[in-house]
């Protein structure tokens, strides 16, 4: 209990940020036409690939063999998420663009 309270007061700004962010996320996609649901889900999927930053940090700081191997795998997986996610989304949206002409 005590630790939770002290965490909250120590990280006030972070918590405000999270709460605001939740609303921003909801606000941003509230009026999306269902046409775009799949590309949007795919785009969001690519964005959470930002977790790769954490993978790069553990890889870069790695000293032990354990951290090196796991870090290496984590960076590969994270890259798959980011690159695959953006490329798939682009392929979906490419079709919408072609159509407009």
């Amino acid at each position, binding site marked *: 209990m*005590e*630790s*939770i309270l002290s*965490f909250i007061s*120590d990280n006030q700004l972070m918590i405000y*940020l*999270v709460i605001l*962010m*939740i609303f*921003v*996320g909801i606000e*941003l*996609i*509230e*009026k*999306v036409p269902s*046409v*775009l*649901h*799949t*590309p*949007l*889900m*795919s*785009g*969001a*999927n690519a*964005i*959470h690939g*930002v*977790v*790769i*930053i*954490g*993978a*790069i*940090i*553990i890889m*870069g*700081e*790695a000293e*032990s063999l354990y*951290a*090196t191997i796991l*870090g290496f795998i*984590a960076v*590969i*997986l994270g*890259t*798959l*998420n980011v*690159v*695959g*996610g*953006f490329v*798939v*989304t*682009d392929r979906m949206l490419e*079709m*919408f663009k072609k159509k407009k002409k």
Partner: protein
Amino acid sequence: MNQSILNLIYLVGSLSFMIGLKMLSKPESARKGNLVAAFGMTIAIFGTIFLYDGIKTSNYIWIFGALIIGTIIGTLMAKKVKMTGMPQMVSFFNGMGGACAAIISLVEYNHMGETTDIFNFSEGFGDTPVAVINGLKVKLGIIYLGLIIGSISFAGSMIAFGKLDEKIKDKTLPLQKVINIGMLLVILGIGAAASLGNIQWPNIIYVVLTLSLLYGVLFVMPIGGADMPVVISLLNSFTGVAAAMGGFLYDNKVMLFGGILVGSAGTLLTVVMCKAMNRSLLNVLIGNFGGGAATGEAKSMTGTIKEITKADAAVLMKYSKKVVIVPGYGLAVAQAQHICHELEEVLEAEGVEVKYAIHPVAGRMPGHMNVLLAESNVSYDKLLEMDDINPEFKTTDVVLIVGANDVVNPAAKNDPASPIYGMPILDVEDAAHTIVLKRSMKAGYAGIENELFYSPKNSMLFGDAKKTLTDLVSELKSL
């Protein structure tokens, strides 16, 4: 200096995610939005590699090696996949992100174990101030949350991927609901106890990891039918939250920003999809929906079905005023979207008004049909959403249902025993005629009979969607 530049880069990265997501939600700007977000991601990645304090230059080779391997595999997979396989591809990439988050937690846990005596909380660390101990407890809690959410997302996404690829079948254990809730409570309980220092066995984290992976499997395993899109969207937001945990761990704003953004946007998208199928999010979380369909309680159908020849179907459509096409997964499987567009053009040339009725969960993902039809140059304004097209069925002469089943099943409206009861459907029975184009009488993805097929107004046209549509087009041209 480096740190300030990196902070600025993270700020730009975060903004680009927000703007990118905003642009993604409008058809005109969607593609650019994706590129904007990708730009933000790129600068954040390279900024971290070159400017983050603590990255050893001796490890560059590993980082770049992994980046190159990941980029090559990811690009190949994403380029090679067919449009019909998109949903499982998204699920696969989502799982990779979840696994990445779980690994980060594992490594950070070990790192913590090396630097501090984290397994002796209850005795305190001698003179260590309470605030420091509390900070460590919170950090452990975040590590556990990242691990649990990441592993569930990974295991669940892999199962969803296998299911959509039709490599894994639906399975329900007896007492599945009880087992699932129990397991989730046990996982969270162990995680909480370990974070607070009540469990002092270092390897407990691997127990949590194993249980979380198992839970992910059990969570998705019984879910079948049209519910899979909801699961993917939910797992997508899970991974977002897991990424945000990494943001807390490293006090990294761009991870926090991107993660929370996807977490909340993904949850909203999930709720929107649930609404479209008349299910509550709670049902999703307990992992108890859709599975009932496989047990086959649906009543057996009586009555006769009527077949129609391609020539008759062509004549029927040619002399109609208005034809509505209802596309479903069968159209995607048969890759019939191009010929479908051709049929539309031939009919329009004859003066027939043609529209498409898109059910929110047609195919395997919301918007799946729109993507496919857009690929074959079908114009936007011909694609009508359920609420817009439903009143129009009364004035429609022929509804051509191509490879769709559950989304036009009247049981959703008038059979309370049906597993899909309550799901909004396309009111195709209001039209003068319906023609169902299907490979066989086999039930749809939800595994239930469709009484529409036995309606006197309905005719069946058996065969592969692409081949049948091709024949229909040539019949129409020769008339």
